[in-house]
């Protein structure tokens, strides 16, 4: 294969290369870099325009608990998502079930707000789940817990919403594993679960990591679902706090501090993702 040295390109070729990259760079600059820099700057300024760390101390003192709660909810959801997508993706990889594969990818095309509403209906005090349980006669619907307004409901909604993209990434990676490697393991006595946890997942840990990062950051920034369901009366997801600061308090400094703190939470994940992508 002929190697191309950037220094050996003519000026015309270099300009052509820059022109091809320009739209993408412009979008990243306009829609990400510029707003982020503005947000970063604003997070260090008071409403009077004075440089200060007050926004951060206020954000952490008021919303520190919510911040940790958000990380906890996202972490639990992520672990659940990895376990569920690994098992479903593994079983789909080891057999041919096109209909099931289609069904599991449906969440990919359902908007967050619809997921929130669906979960609200499904997990509400007298929602579909509790009604179904009460039909059995074993449960009194009045004493059944309301999952919709608990952390469990939040986790369930976040997992369900991210199931499609998680499965898409996981299954794609699993399908790249050579069949004979799995057959060698089957011949040694490995059943389906062992094939998944001893082979498919560790052999694709890079792809699983990328999936984890993408879904974790998506969960961290989710707003519609926490707005519709969630921990009634207790801690709430950090995006709800950000919304409150902007809409009700109109305190952009604190809102931006929350945004930067959220960004820091996803920064580690983003670095891991970029490392994974560039390695590939």
């Amino acid at each position, binding site marked *: 294969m002929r190697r191309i040295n950037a220094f050996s390109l003519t000026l015309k070729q270099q300009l052509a290369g820059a022109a091809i990259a320009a739209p993408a760079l412009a979008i990243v600059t306009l829609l990400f870099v510029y707003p982020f820099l503005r947000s970063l700057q604003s997070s260090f300024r008071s409403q009077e325009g004075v440089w200060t760390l007050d926004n951060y101390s206020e954000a952490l003192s008021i919303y520190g608990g919510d911040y940790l709660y958000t990380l906890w909810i996202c972490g639990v959801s992520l672990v659940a998502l990895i376990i569920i997508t690994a098992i479903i993706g593994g079983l789909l990889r080891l057999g041919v079930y096109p209909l099931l594969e289609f069904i599991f990818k449906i969440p990919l095309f359902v908007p967050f707000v619809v997921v929130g509403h669906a979960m609200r209906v499904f997990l509400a005090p007298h929602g579909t789940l509790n009604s179904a349980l009460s039909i059995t006669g074993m449960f009194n619907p009045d004493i059944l817990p309301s999952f919709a307004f608990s952390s469990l409901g939040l986790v369930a909604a976040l997992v369900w919403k991210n199931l499609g993209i998680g499965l898409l990434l996981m299954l794609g990676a699993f399908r790249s594993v050579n069949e004979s490697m799995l*057959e*060698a393991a*089957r011949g040694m006595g490995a059943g389906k679960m062992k094939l998944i946890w001893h082979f498919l997942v560790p052999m694709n*840990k890079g792809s699983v990591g990328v999936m984890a990062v993408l879904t974790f950051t998506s969960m961290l920034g989710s707003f519609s679902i926490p707005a519709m369901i969630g921990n009634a009366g207790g801690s709430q997801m950090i995006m709800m706090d950000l919304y409150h600061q902007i809409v009700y308090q109109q305190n952009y400094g604190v809102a931006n501090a929350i945004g930067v703190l959220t960004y820091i939470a996803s920064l580690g994940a983003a670095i891991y993702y970029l490392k994974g992508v560039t390695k590939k």
Partner: protein
Amino acid sequence: MGIYIEGLTKAYGKKRGITDINIHLPEGGLTAIVGPSGCGKTTLLRTLAGFHTADEGRILFGSRDVTRISPQGRKAAMVFQHYALWPHMTVADNVGYGLRLQKVPAKERERRVREVLERVEIDTSDIGARYPQHYSGGQQQRIALARALVVQPEVLLLDEPLSNLDAKVRQRLRIGIRSIQQSFGITAVYVTHDQEEALSMADYVILMNDGKVEQAGTPEEIYRKPSTYFTAQFLGESHTLTLKYQGKPQRLVLRSGDALVTPVVDEWGTNAETLERSIAHEEVIEEDGSWVMEGEIRHHLFMGSYYRYMVEIQGQSMFVDDDRLLKPGSCKVTIPTEKAYWFDI
């Protein structure tokens, strides 16, 4: 234990895989399944392994019917063409995985892993730290063989294990695999498209064609007594000539090393009349336990220890090997009758 295959059939939708295979593979021996691409040899092996479910028929490992048993339960281990070593596990973990599933204690597992790796001549000094990709192709295949043998399977299945290796390593590993199989005394089934590999390694050879067993027997039987035209022309470096014999055209299959070329010289006068008659009738004649025909040496190739001649016989070309350097021109081609195989067209 011997393997008994009774009426085994496997199809892929409308595409035929194997049809009505009935064969017995001898206990403790190495059986080679050979045949051209798409003949069903790999389908047969994979059905024996349990990776394919038979549509009809039975497979018995000894007296145990394994037809409907999963690969995990068959006590058969397979060695794959592309090694199929797990890249995320060290060599020790790769080889010890089967024992781990059998819940063999760690110390015992380590001892058995080292023992089997030593038997396949892999240095065991740092197997706990090295990964399969740190080894050469030949070494990887030996590790794969160790992984298969360490679980003490009843049957060892090998799917073209040497086809990814270069010629020298292949030659060495042929002997290596054969001696390991013999020392373990395990019943082995070896799939290959390389007839030389099959003939040189196996105790028993099954030649397959179009999903069926064309012929089976010892390497000598199958090579020296081909019962069908396909067998005769598939094995060895064979040539088919369409010649007139006893008044009708027939196919003569012969092998390069079995024919003798004699240039037409003065001292050949005693045969001149016979040869003339042969040419006149465009027929091949039998003479002193050999088939004799007239040919023309067209080209020769120096092959190192011998010469390879392209000889034209009745407008058809064939190769004949001889260690003498002969001049181009008319010649007499002689083939011992027991080394030439006639088949009706």
